[in-house]
């Protein structure tokens, strides 16, 4: 399976790679494309406790500002410092080097699979 197929998604355009109690989170290529060139990323500090659905960061492009929502309830265990220094990674490799945060979690909420997410972005 391709990485795109393995990932889960939120309706707010985050992707989630839910590993062993830790979710790696980024924004989808669709979201990055809608934002345009990302020039600034504001991420939470490691150790921050976050709730599913709460805003935990901001992604700014030249044109607009997007909020990053946590898909899970838990604790931020790692943030991608590379993306803070080089925000264009969100555009160039959104599902890879452009990952944003890793959040530990107890329970994984219901998330979308690729088909469900794709139908969401093609409706609009």
């Amino acid at each position, binding site marked *: 399976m391709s990485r795109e197929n393995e990932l889960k998604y939120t309706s707010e355009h985050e992707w989630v790679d839910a590993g062993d109690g830790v979710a790696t989170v980024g924004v989808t290529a669709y979201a990055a494309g809608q934002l345009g060139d990302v020039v600034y990323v504001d991420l939470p500090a490691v150790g921050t406790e976050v709730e599913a659905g709460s805003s935990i960061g901001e992604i700014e492009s030249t044109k607009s500002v*997007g909020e990053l929502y946590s898909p899970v309830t838990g604790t931020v265990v790692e943030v991608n410092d590379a993306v803070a220094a080089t925000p264009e990674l969100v555009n160039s490799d959104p599902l890879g080097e452009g990952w944003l945060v890793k959040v530990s979690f107890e329970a994984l909420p219901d998330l979308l699979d690729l088909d469900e997410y794709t139908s969401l972005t093609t409706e609009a």
Partner: protein
Amino acid sequence: MTDTDASAPADAGEELLSPLHEAHVALGASFTDFAGWQMPVRYSSDLAEHHAVRTAAGLFDLSHMGEILVLGPDAAAALDYALAGRMSALDEGRAKYTLILTEAGGVIDDLIVYRTGPDRFLVVANASNREVVAETLRARADGFDALVEDESGDIALIAIQGPKSAEILANVEDLLADDGAIGDALDSLGYYRVLRGSYLALPVLIARTGYTGEDGFEIYIAPDRVRSLWDAILETGAGAGIVPAGLASRDTLRLEAGMPLYGHELGVDVLPAQAGLGRAVALGDDRDFVGRAAVESGAAPEPDSLLAGRVLVGLASEGRRAGRAGYRVFRDDGSDAVGLVTSGALSPTLGYPIAMAYVDPSESVAGTVLSIDVRGSRIAATVVTLPFYKRES
């Protein structure tokens, strides 16, 4: 993630397509709704498109803009009454930036007016204001021997902007000037001057105007020929580094150049002088025009507007977070709200955040340090003289 761009128009309804739509699709454009039009917001990267215009050239589709013809023996007199600038003083072959005002002195739209004949003017309006401008001109031309015709559907508009524009345009096959060689005609064409020419034997109007702060040209052409000219310019300019450029880069380019945008810096609640556009209002004679008395009184057109009594300034900050349209501006030392951001972005050319804002006149002196509330945190912003960016000439 949610896109919270407050400036995106939410206009639903009929979807209008540019005569270049298929070309944009073929170039892989992302589209945005602009005043009911599906227009390219970017083709690949808005930053790359921005930089291409500053260093080489970019090609924009502006076919959504409104083109309104005013013709007849009284055309100049009708426009003298309808607009804030004195169009009767405009020589044939020249263009003028002007405003159309309400009785209360507020800005209905900013316009470029071309005099294309003794009794003939082309009025170019923003896409979102095409209808209101045409209707207002028609009403104000009542009693004059002048006709107002909205020709927007029959005129396409593209703009080539950037330092290599003249060189590229001069080499486009089948693009000819009516008088002399196209290269010489373009070279000698002054800023805000127009030349008549032809492309594939059909008439075109080429103006040395733009909205980017760079040298460049705007070309008016029949919709059924615009695709061919668009492709020819991109092909001719490929070696020189031309790229198709979308509305996202157009917005950051005009912002750096300190040029106002209707709906942001301009509106019916703003007097021209507040926006630094006093020069576009001709008060030097006793000509009667709509809005004159209100402009001279200086009274706010809409006293309850957050912009009332405030003046437009440039704000420059450090770091990478930009103030955006709608963000409040505060005095640096306290909690007094002294203004409102109308446009802002991290400047691609300068590398720091810039914004245009309306602030209290007492805070408008260059060097004054203010702060912008960026979604709950304050960033320092220094008042600077507009424009932020000026090309070396």
